[in-house]
């Protein structure tokens, strides 16, 4: 009898312990599930936030380099608004005109644009389909207009690497940054994004060599300008 009582006591103990373990397991797994729910789907904080009005271009380059900036003035102000008849806020028109991947007719607007960018033949490879004041990233996210370098880096990775190292592209100012600013031009300040090949130019006049020094034959030859 005593033996049976002892046995049943042990059994009850075992049951109680296993029940306790099961309960603990339940509680801990519930806790895990809870923590996963907390860390899960918050959007990454580093996604570019693009405002709908055109982004201001940050000042880049020396004041004497402004002629190099091929980017149009991003905000039309004052009298220019009347003169041009439009602002550079693309969304004023494009909120009505939906974007398409391809056009089977020649463009009747933006006639000044001739896309000559190699294999990159589609507007929406760079321009954002729903916000024309921004660029489009791989995943459809928006890249701010001022971050155009990030856009070009989508394809031109090695060039972007060299640009970061200060080897590609034009730098001005001070090589010793302790003594003054070093400015870097961004991609579209030298390359027209729609036709990025560097344009040919007229060379400055060649070295002159005085006709007198070239000998008697050349004495009456016209002077090299």
């Amino acid at each position, binding site marked *: 009898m005593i033996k049976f009582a002892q046995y049943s006591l042990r059994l009850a103990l075992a049951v109680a312990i296993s029940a306790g373990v099961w309960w603990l397991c339940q509680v801990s797994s519930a806790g895990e599930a809870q923590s996963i729910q907390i860390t899960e789907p918050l959007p990454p904080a580093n996604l570019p936030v693009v405002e709908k009005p055109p982004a201001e271009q940050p000042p880049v380059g020396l004041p004497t380099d402004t002629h*190099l900036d091929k980017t149009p003035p991003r905000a039309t102000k004052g009298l220019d608004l009347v003169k041009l008849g439009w602002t550079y806020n693309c969304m004023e028109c494009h909120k009505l005109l939906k974007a398409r991947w391809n056009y089977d007719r020649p463009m009747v607007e933006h006639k000044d644009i001739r896309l000559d960018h190699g294999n990159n033949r589609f507007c929406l490879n760079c321009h954002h389909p729903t916000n024309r004041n921004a660029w489009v990233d791989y995943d459809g996210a928006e890249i701010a207009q001022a971050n155009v370098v990030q856009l070009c880096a989508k394809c031109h990775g090695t*060039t972007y690497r*060299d640009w970061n*190292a*200060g*080897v*590609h*592209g*034009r*730098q*001005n*100012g*001070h*090589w*010793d940054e*302790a*003594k*003054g600013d070093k400015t870097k*031009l961004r991609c579209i300040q*030298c390359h027209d994004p729609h036709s990025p090949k*560097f344009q*040919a*130019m*007229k*060379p*400055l*006049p*060649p*070295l*002159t*060599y*005085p006709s*007198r*020094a070239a000998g008697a034959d050349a004495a009456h030859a016209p*002077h*090299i300008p």
Partner: protein
Amino acid sequence: MSHDPQNEVSPKTIEQVYRPMTRRTFLKGAAASMVGVAGLMAALKPLLELDSGAITLDELLQKHYRQLTPEDLRRIMDNLAAKAEKEHGVRPTLRDLKPLDGVEFGYALNLTRCIGCRKCAHACLAENNQSRANPDDIEMSYIRVLELDKGAINLETSNVYYNPETVPQPDKYYMPVQCHQCRQAPCTKVCPVQATWQEKDGIVVVDYNWCIGCRYCMAACPYDARRFNYQKPTIAKEQINPNQTYLSNRIRPKGVVEKCTFCLHRTRDGKYPACLEVCPTGARVFGNLLDPDSEINYILKNKRVYILKEDVGTQPRFYYFFDK
């Protein structure tokens, strides 16, 4: 007494022994002494100039740049600035910039990017006060842009005087050549008066007040990097760059050799050289070779670098590289 032919003295021998003054020897001697006097006059010409005020006693007795005390140098530079103001109408701010510690300059040029627009060569003129107002002047820019045929690096068929409507031409490429600031600089070794030497930061400079104008250095340079002032430099007043240093771009006297100094009046101030500032394609890269993170070291580590005339053993600090 018997006749001994050995005792006979021929008239010819007498003439040889006594050498009487003939017309010919007199003229020879006179010509030789005239040359001597002319040489002496030429040697004493500075004294005549001193008398007329063309040079001062200070300039005549000036020591070599490296032996000057700072006070002496200051005084000499004040005199030079005053002289420049008198002759050219602009008073320059003449300084003496010493090499920076821990800095050795290096230059790299991207041959793939250079389009041969010659903006660098003309910026060099604007920066370094070379002689150019007289149309008879030889072009004094320190940079010569060579136009080469694609397919080889053949300097012998290159062309400096190219002038097409647009550059780059499809079958050509362009190579600007300037002083390579060699580690084993032949120009400094041949100078008979040590008027040109290499500074601590690698720049080969000329003391224009010490140079005697023999042009040995020009003959020694494999890169044609040196220019000679055959005549007194001419430069329009409004083209003078007043930011000058003693060793770089101050207006030179007649009869001295000058050369590219990597614009040391800019670069020792931390700025980029003038030729780099204007390059429209960003083909030029300048920096400190001793700084492992500098752009120039990035090129030396990662790019395909070409050294012009590497076989002559000058070990330049100017590198060409190829890169899209």
